[in-house]
């Protein structure tokens, strides 16, 4: 690591990449990946504020929000009429967008020219909330249309039904955008209260990757008008107990049955590095069970338990975690029994398998540097979590087969399991 004018510079020799780490005088974390490998630059500012942030303590009392407020706020800031955000970015040929997730809201642009002007506009649009009754009411119809579009997706419906089985009270059970009903309760006052609480320098991180000068990026970050301040005292209901609804059915207009099944993670890991390690170990477990090279997956296919539609994922953050397996099937009972049995049967991991998986993950990691957007996004997220750059390969090299086996025993518990069956209707 080296230092230059307020930046720390971290280098990875294998990848031939540098990341510059800094912080503005108001506490906004900044990372820059200056590289001439790309003609395009990508910039992201991300806030630790997502759909699960439905409660926080303020001045001695607890504020509660309706579902969908983080997404609504993203829409309102993003469609700021004062700076005609779309038009100004478009005139410079820049592509701009925003997204809200369970725990984060991010705003980003991609541009081949006039990067600093675009960055000033990006930071300006998150630094002030031009919110009034008229523009909030107008946005409600557009957001309702977006929600209806999502609700037309069988997978979206099944996914959130599955989460509501796992989590009886935790807000991860709610759709990110809320529902058409829940957004009716969102007022200008509510949006301004949440904006004031979460849109602060200490609750955000910014990253820019591409052909840029880190010092100019830092100067732009210093111009950012966000209020100084840290993360609010968010409150989530504790929801680490057994699953209460182990099976549910949902009739949908789908051509075949769909099953969503999996387990709730019953432990939370506050430390970000520990959480990333746990994420990796769980991904190795899923790879052992369900990757294309797995004889376990092939056995499920040969026995007509699960076909090629089978997919698996593990999602976790500081306030929730779950493992999900889904597939289409003509025989949901056989699919659920067979996949559940595969999930719970103790795995073995030999050194050959670990070597293949390490190679595969190394290739995936190197590939992730092929996209300037991925570079900016990953650095913004790592900055927000306080993770140093370039730790992935060390993490991967140190994982053992025993860890994967132990993780399966910890995660796969009978009373953590739930499934949802989508019935063709």
């Amino acid at each position: 690591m080296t230092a230059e004018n307020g930046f720390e510079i971290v280098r990875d020799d294998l990848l031939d990449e540098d990341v510059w780490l800094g912080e503005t005088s108001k506490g906004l974390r900044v990372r820059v990946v200056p590289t001439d490998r790309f003609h395009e630059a990508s910039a992201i500012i991300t806030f630790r504020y997502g759909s699960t942030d439905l409660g926080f303590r303020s001045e001695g009392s607890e504020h509660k929000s309706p579902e969908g407020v983080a997404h609504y706020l993203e829409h309102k800031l993003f469609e700021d009429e004062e700076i005609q955000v779309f038009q100004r970015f478009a005139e410079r040929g820049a592509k701009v967008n925003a997204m809200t997730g369970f725990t984060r809201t991010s705003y980003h642009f991609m541009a081949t020219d006039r990067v600093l002007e675009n960055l000033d506009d990006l930071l300006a649009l998150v630094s002030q909330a031009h919110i009034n009754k008229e523009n909030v009411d107008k946005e409600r119809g557009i957001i309702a249309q977006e929600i209806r579009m999502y609700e037309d997706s069988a997978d979206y419906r099944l996914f959130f039904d599955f989460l509501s089985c796992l989590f009886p009270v935790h807000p991860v059970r709610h759709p990110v955008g809320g529902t058409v009903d829940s957004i009716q309760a969102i007022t200008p006052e509510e949006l301004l209260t949440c904006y004031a609480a979460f849109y602060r320098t200490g609750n955000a991180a910014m990253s820019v990757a591409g052909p840029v000068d880190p010092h100019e990026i830092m100067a732009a970050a210093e111009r950012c008008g966000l209020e100084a301040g840290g993360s609010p005292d968010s409150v989530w209901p504790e929801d680490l107990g057994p699953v209460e609804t182990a099976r549910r059915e949902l009739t949908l207009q789908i051509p075949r049955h769909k099953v969503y099944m999996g387990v709730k993670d019953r432990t939370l890991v506050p430390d970000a590095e520990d959480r990333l390690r746990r994420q990796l170990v769980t991904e190795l477990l899923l790879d052992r069970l369900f990757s294309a090279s797995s004889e376990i997956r092939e056995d499920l296919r040969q026995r007509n338990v699960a076909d090629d539609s089978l997919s698996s994922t593990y999602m976790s953050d500081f306030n929730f975690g779950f493992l999900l397996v889904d597939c289409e099937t003509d025989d949901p009972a056989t699919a659920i029994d067979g996949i559940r049995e595969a999930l719970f049967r103790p795995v073995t991991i030999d050194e050959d398998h670990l070597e293949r998986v390490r190679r595969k993950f190394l290739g995936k990691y190197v590939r992730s540097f092929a996209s300037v957007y991925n570079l900016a996004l990953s650095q913004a997220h790592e900055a927000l979590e306080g993770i140093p750059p370039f730790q992935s390969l060390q993490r991967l090299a140190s994982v053992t087969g025993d860890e994967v086996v132990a993780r399966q025993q910890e995660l796969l518990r009978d009373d953590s399991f739930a499934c949802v069956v989508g019935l063709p209707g």
Partner: protein
Amino acid sequence: MLTAMADAFAGFRLAEVEGIPVLWKRDRRFKTFRFSLIARRPLDERAAARSLLPSMLLQGTERDPDRPALARRMEMLYGAAVLPSTSKIGESHLLRFSLDSVAGSHVPGEPDLLSDGLDFLGDILARPRLENGEFATGVFRREQVQAAHEVRALFNDKMVYAGQQALSQACAGEPMAIPEHGGVAAIEALQPADPERARADFLQHGQMWGVAMGALPEEGSLERIGAFLTALPARSPEPVGDPVQVEPRPARADVERANVQQAKQVLVYRVPWTNESRTWVARALFASMLGGGPHSRLFREVREKQSLAYYAHAAVDRNKGLLQVHVGLDESAAERVQVETQKQIEELAAGRFEPAELETARAGLLSTLAAIDDSIGDRMEFTSRQWLLQQDRTPEQQAELYASIQQDEVASSMDGVWLDYSYLLAPQATEAKT
């Protein structure tokens, strides 16, 4: 065998190897490389067999007898993707055999991942696991059923489904109406010998070319590719004709009812087909002004001012001669959106737009072209499209063409545009409006 050709095309180097044109560009900015061998055939009744072929080829080879064995070999190549795939471009069917790998220089021991990957690709392409000259019946039947399931499942993505339905109805009787996958009925009618026939047909009669880009080895890339191409059978390529055109006729409309909350509208306009690039560049600018993003007429008028839709996009298809408008909306707004879309097309075609609108559309397209070298996949696709069109232009030259288009050219580029078909996927609960 290498044969001399013009040594550059669209910014790539060009040589004929084993009778096949190969375009390649070594670019050390990247840590990965990609090679694709592409074969083109007309889109016809063999679409189902052709689309089933990639999944059949991934069931095993003479060397790696089953899917886990193939997957393990890919893992040992640092997760290289060694994959066949098919796609539809206008009224053509393309079969791609691609190797997408990290460069050996970025992994321990610096292995020759181009040679290793091409060996593997050669196994999949030329030495699939066959029994008596065809894929095993049991394997074929399972993949046939899987393919039919996957096509039915397209309904789960309403936007894709609506687009597919609209095209198949708008272009009924033309090759364009055939979906890339051939359709459920065609898949279910396949026989075990059909995929192997499709493989032989592609390799023997396909119009074929290779493209490579990225962190290729400093020396010997072309020789390695040549060694791979020797695995191909003797070839007699057949040309693919121009797209079918139809005479203007009264607009047709259909409403399909389904259990959806948000309606999807697809308007299919015909534009006279031409091989003249300047016209298509002007049309791309026209489509961008109409519905190419938040700066466009449809976004500003239909979504923002009149709140008639959640999204509204427009795009031209040069390979067929279509202008398509896709809208997500409440069913009650469908008629008004159609009227407003027609009005905006007429306004633009009459030249009634501000210079700033054109410049914004141009800035977006120029920015995309300026960034095209940042992605191996995008740049290879650009070069392949240039090869298909036999249009030897680099991204920079294409950008110059975009920069030179005048306002009146954009307006007149859509002369002769006509609405052929309107499709609406709408909720079951209410009556049709169109």
